[in-house]
């Protein structure tokens, strides 16, 4: 058998194994959650049927899944990319807030610019804000000063405070002082939405980011260098790969993607900057990237699944009278199943 065929067979069985793994994790988690619903005196089959009807089975429900999926995809790539170098980016949430913050600054800086100019500018600003927030821990790590896990996590608490200062202070809208938020963005800074739904151009950006992530890591020499750093940093150093440079680059690019998530939530959904920008998309993104093992298709699948789960929270709240927080049990169960598997 030729090498190419062997390689293809191996990849195929890898993919099959990954699919089986995702399937098993999901099935176990759903079964455990069903038990929880039973204990709560609800009919799990009914609950799952309701969820299905309000998400996958309706056009509106499906469009809302895509809306939720957008920031999750970006936040997951933000984690997956640095993870290829062995870097643990727990700072997706902070990077997301910074991306929204800088994008907002961009929009307010040139309120009269035309859309063809302002929109790309705002997107770039969103990327830069997240990249900056990722680069700070990266520089500290590259200089061998502080572990990036700690600093990315801690910066999560700083970014919302910066956003908070601006929405309570300088940027606070004059129109309705009861709610701390910025003024509406100029029309030209808003991401266009499609088909009369809330699905907006951020989804395209997210899918492009996912594809770019794959291309970068698998098809370019830069990806090769980064994978070498992740695979064996000692060897990479000795082979002349500039390890500190790649650490900074990877965390900055990752942070940039999270920043795009923040930008797309602000410019695509809210239309203004709020402190309640994200219900923890950055953290969920970490979970998705981790569950998917960094594989692009896995990320796509998992992001979709998590969009369903969070939508299920809304559905169960309405149809079953359960608190929204019950979906946290489902999320925790998934995490638990994965953890149990990993440490066998």
């Amino acid at each position, binding site marked *: 058998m030729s*090498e*190419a065929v*062997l*390689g293809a067979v191996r990849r195929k069985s890898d993919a099959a194994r990954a699919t089986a793994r995702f399937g098993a994790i999901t099935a176990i988690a759903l079964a455990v959650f069903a038990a929880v619903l039973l204990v709560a005196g609800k009919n799990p089959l009914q609950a799952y049927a309701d969820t299905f009807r309000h998400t996958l089975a309706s056009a509106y429900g499906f469009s809302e899944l895509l809306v939720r999926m957008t920031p999750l995809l970006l936040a997951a790539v933000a984690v997956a990319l640095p993870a290829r170098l062995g870097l643990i980016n727990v700072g997706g949430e902070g990077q997301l807030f910074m991306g929204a913050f800088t994008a907002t600054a961009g929009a307010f800086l040139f309120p009269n610019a035309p859309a063809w100019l302002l929109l790309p500018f705002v997107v770039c600003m969103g990327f830069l804000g997240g990249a900056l927030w990722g680069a700070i821990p990266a520089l500290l790590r590259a200089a061998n000063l502080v572990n990036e896990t700690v600093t990315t996590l801690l910066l999560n608490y700083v970014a919302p405070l910066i956003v908070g200062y601006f929405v309570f202070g300088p940027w606070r809208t004059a129109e309705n002082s009861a709610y701390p938020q910025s003024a509406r963005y100029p029309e030209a800074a808003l991401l266009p939405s499609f088909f009369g739904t809330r699905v907006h151009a951020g989804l395209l950006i997210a899918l492009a980011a996912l594809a770019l992530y794959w291309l970068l890591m698998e*098809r*370019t*020499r*830069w990806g*090769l260098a980064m*994978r*070498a750093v*992740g*695979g*064996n940093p*000692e*060897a*990479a*150093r*000795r*082979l*002349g*790969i*500039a390890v500190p440079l790649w650490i900074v680059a990877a965390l900055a690019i990752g942070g940039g993607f999270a920043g795009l998530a923040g930008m797309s939530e602000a410019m695509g959904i809210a239309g203004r900057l709020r402190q309640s920008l994200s219900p923890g998309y950055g953290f969920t993104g970490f979970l998705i990237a981790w569950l998917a093992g960094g594989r692009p298709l896995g990320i796509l699948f998992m992001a979709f699944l998590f969009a369903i789960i969070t939508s299920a929270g809304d559905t169960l709240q309405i149809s079953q009278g359960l608190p929204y927080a019950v979906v946290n049990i489902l999320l925790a169960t998934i995490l638990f199943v994965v953890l149990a598997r990993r440490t066998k």
Partner: protein
Amino acid sequence: MPPSTVLVEMRGVSKRYGAVQANDGVDFRLQGGEVHALLGENGAGKSTLSKILYGFVRPDSGQILLGGEPVRLDSPRDARSHGVGMVFQSFMLISALSVLENIELFLTDLPAVPDDEAVGTRIREFGERFGLSIDPGAPVRQLSIGDQQKVEILKLLLANARILIFDEPTRVLAPHEIDGLFRVFAALKAEGYAILFITHKLAEVMRCADRITVMRKGRIAGSYDARDVDVARLVTMMFGEPAAHAPRQEAERLLQTDTAPAILELRGAASRATGNEIALRKLDLRVGSREIVGVAGVSGSGQKELGDLVLGLRRLTMGVKRFCGDDASAWSIARMRENGLAFIPEDPLGMAAVAGMSVRENLVLGTGRLYHRGTGLDWPRLQSTMEKSFRALAFPMPALQAPMATLSGGNLQRVVIAREMAHQPRLILALYPTRGLDVRSAASVRDLLRRACAAGSGVLLISEDLEELAEMADRLLVLFQGAIVGEFRRGAWTAEQVGLLMTGARASASV
């Protein structure tokens, strides 16, 4: 001396790992009062056999009798309770604790609050009896490697082991420490202990063994009384045919040391200590074209640090590094490599390759900008260059898409060597390049270095193996505590001289 009693008998022991039959119907007997050497090249099955005896590995079939009783050894704990003990290559000591505490940790029958006095007394008693004297209160981190080995042996003796397995115990020792170990062997066997000595160093076997068993491809190739066998016969047994002894380099080969252009030159080069790496002190070193410069030293004398300094991984705090005449003191590794530095380390997966990537990807790592094409790489050109390199070295080329981790140790190193040799390096930095290789692979690596040298490269060969250095090095430097304490020309030194310098027993010398 008590009459020879068979302490261990293994009958028809077999063990298979996947496609590899590591042990194939092995019959083996170990007697009290003998030093029994177990010889064989890498992969011959010696370590599997010893792991079976120590309860680490369960045989697929076969029987083990200890003191005549059939036993089932499911774990090292079982083995220890039957009086089997093992001294590993890497010691199992906790460096922050004292000798006494380390030994107490190992003893299972102590009361909850151990009687330090009593244990200490026993340590001293055993120490005097077997030439293992050591201060029970000394912290292990302050002990030399040789003394740490003594602690390992004492541990086993205090735990009432009668069967002692030594896995390549001399690998980490300086020559005078090896003599000491062999004296310990003699004292132990005089009291009826059985010693199983696993090694592939023939000279040592001839010095200390009473009985020699040779393994080959998982089977016993022969077992002899040491008096009835010579080195040539053992070599034949190990390899099945007489191994071609590499032709000895003529000692009168012209020394171009001073006239040949320097490829690498260190002048007063020093670097700072960092973490667990030591400082280098004012090194003067020169590697000319067509010259092999050997560096000897006991492990931890600054070899890795010297290698990293040459590579450009470690900054010079003083002095200068020149590479082919240019001041390379501040060059990055990438720049050093672009200018013709090749690096062959001992453990390819540790320092020179990425296990999770394919062979092809590993071949392109470290080639700098050579194969850049747009955002990607020029794979066809890489492949043709590497094919040539493999052919020139007479190495079989592995499947390019195969993950590196699926290759055997020897093939891993061949991939690294083929990559490093592919672009006519000017300087080859070889860091223990033959450590862990069997005799034949080691000879082929040495031959390759010699050929590269004849073709005009300079070689800096860092090694612990004095025989290898004697064979290879045109000049020999001795490293001790980060400083060069001796420099010799080919043939102008003896193992004893160098050994004394390596261990700091003598201050410095140069011939």
